[in-house]
């Protein structure tokens, strides 16, 4: 009886969260699954088309490009963005001269809206009067000048480059985690003759693993949702070379192709779920694996 009451109390307290989860997550995902089998313009009644939307995925070259770019952006986040943030966090955590000033400088771009940054970088990259081309001219590299956002080879790297250096957000996460590491570990390693690099490699990096797991998860989910920068800087061009999943979904939506847009959105949800599971498995604690 006591156990029943106890369990009932728990269930009742969980009920609002569960209801919210069902209404705002499970129901929409279920709706996506349902409408992915429909042809629907959101105004007229839905028309059942079976697997047609999924067959269209296989044939849709823009989807393939968008998927590739979205995954590449995620990989750039994991293998470039986060390591840079880790490096700067480790350096600033050593409390070098002016470290507080540097911390503010690195974090400041994260306070600026994506719109403002996009406009700024549009003018940096512009092929007619952009700052980058002007700098190249000044240093005698006119041959390197190009229309950075309108060139098939440079548009996507340029798009990633405008974001990759704004490491402030993850730098702060890593610095907060490093500050929780027991200083006595560094002191005792110093007594044993360990240098700075050895300390960072054998103490800081292993103990940062939980923060890295969180950062990897956040950067992957952020890049999956990425919309503003591609929309503002390139609108997916030139020739869809910078198309990403969220922008492709948006384009289908404003073309009244909600059935296909929902199919694409479902793919995005599935990719996101796969990434979460993969990251959790990758960063699973040794204690759990040991049993």
């Amino acid at each position, binding site marked *: 009886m*006591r156990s029943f009451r106890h369990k009932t*109390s728990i269930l*009742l*307290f969980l*009920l*609002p969260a569960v*209801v*919210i989860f069902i*209404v705002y997550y499970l129901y929409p995902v279920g709706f996506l699954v349902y409408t992915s089998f429909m042809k629907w*313009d*959101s*105004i*007229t009644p839905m028309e059942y088309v079976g697997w047609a939307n999924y067959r269209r995925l296989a044939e849709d070259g*823009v989807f393939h490009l968008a998927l590739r770019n979205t995954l590449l952006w995620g990989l750039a986040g994991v293998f470039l963005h986060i390591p840079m943030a880790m490096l700067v966090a480790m350096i600033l955590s050593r409390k070098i001269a002016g470290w507080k000033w540097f911390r503010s400088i690195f974090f400041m771009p994260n306070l600026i809206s994506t719109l403002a940054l996009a406009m700024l970088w*549009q003018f940096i990259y*512009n*092929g*007619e*009067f*952009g700052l980058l081309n002007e700098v190249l001219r000044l240093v005698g590299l006119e041959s390197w000048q190009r*229309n950075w*956002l*309108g*060139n*098939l080879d440079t*548009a996507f790297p340029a798009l990633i480059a405008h974001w990759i250096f704004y490491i402030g957000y993850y730098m702060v996460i890593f610095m907060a985690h490093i500050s929780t590491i027991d200083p006595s570990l560094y002191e005792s390693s110093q007594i044993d003759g360990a240098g700075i690099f050895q300390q960072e490699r054998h103490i800081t990096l292993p103990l940062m693993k939980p923060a890295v797991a969180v950062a990897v998860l956040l950067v992957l989910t952020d890049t999956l949702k990425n919309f503003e920068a591609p929309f503002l800087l*390139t*609108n*997916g*061009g*030139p*020739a*869809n070379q910078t198309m990403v999943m969220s922008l492709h979904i948006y*384009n289908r*939506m*404003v*073309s*009244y*192709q*909600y059935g296909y847009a929902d199919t694409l959105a479902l793919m995005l949800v599935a990719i996101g779920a796969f990434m979460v599971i993969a990251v959790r498995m990758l960063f699973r604690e040794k204690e759990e694996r040991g049993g």
Partner: protein
Amino acid sequence: MKPTGKKRVIAFFTLVLALALFLQACSGSSGNGKPGGEDAGTATAGGNQKAVELTFATHWVGEDGKAGIVQKIVDDFNAKYGENARVVIDAIPDDDVYQDKMKTNLATGSLPDIFTFYYNPVESLRYYSSGKLLDLVPYMNEEWKRNTNPDTLAAGQYEGQTLAVPLDQMITPFFYNKELFEQAGISSFPETWDGMIEAAEALKSRGIHALAMGTGENAWSAMLLYSYIVSSIGGPDVMKKGLDDPAYAEAAQILKNLFNYAPNDAVGATYQQYASHFINERAAIIVNGPWMISEFPEELRGKIGVGTSPAAPGGKGKQGALISGIGWMMAAKKQDDPLRAEYSARFIEFFTHPDNAKQIFLESGEVFESTNYTVDESEVDPISREILGKLREAGQTYDYFEGMTSSAVKIEFPASLSALVLDQLTPEKFAENLRNANMQ
């Protein structure tokens, strides 16, 4: 440990509060998209009367050439009908974003009380058939009918109802810089596409870009230029027949050639970027509408000439033609509240009244298609006067591509255009992409 009675009571009321807040949040939406249902937007005017508050969503705000006159019209309406109705502007500055937002609002049933949309025989049907627009017929009194051109009104009629009123006549000539032309030794605006290439070469030799256009956003100016080329080859009715005509591929080749004479940032350039080339006199020609006149600085206005469509060899279009068609439509959301319905219709009537239509024309150059009004030529700025003169002389008028095709084609056009310009697509494949998009 077993919870005490006091703790159980606190837990119970916490749970009830959480559920109550949750249910209240979920019940917030209503047919008009505002919390609280149909009574939302009702404000107290003077005395004890309640004035309805109507939302007019528009992109004619901020730096737009019509922002001032639109605000004045709204203020005048509120002054006249303030005891019963008050219109509030919902500003959505960007044209493309505004259109996308209205489409989303239509899909989600959250249209503003009064709004506009671009006329397109394909896309407008979505609005008309949605059942969400107010039928204006019951509100069209004799004065309103007298002031309206019945032929044009047909564009807003569906199954015996008048669901929208055409606003402006979208005329999009070639604006060219006469001074830059003189510098390049060009005496007149080209009358053939070969002549256009020759003029572009002459300008290029002087370090001047011939055409201000880009593939960014919806590639607006390039799309208009493409419309001219297609129509000059296939004739003024070519766009009414679908996208199968060989003129589309042939025109794509000419358009691609003309991109050689556009600024270096043309691929990916947004409207602001390529328009600035023309306004700052780095480019000699731009295809756009009279709304751009308000953007021309004073020192540029005296240099602007108005050009018309060149002819294509063996083409069915005539030299001197102009793109001219219905631009924006104004509509109101269907309302259950008769007062909201009545004043939504009254606002549309007020907005399109000849006096206001005339003021809009004089301040922005926009010609109102649906409304009968006369203008003394001495009141009109020289550029608008020249546009109207060319329109009167035009042997043909053309449609514009975006106005005749679906949203899917509008999105496909800039992507395929950048691929065409960058040699990723042949002209035939470009036309095929547009056809395929049209069938989606």
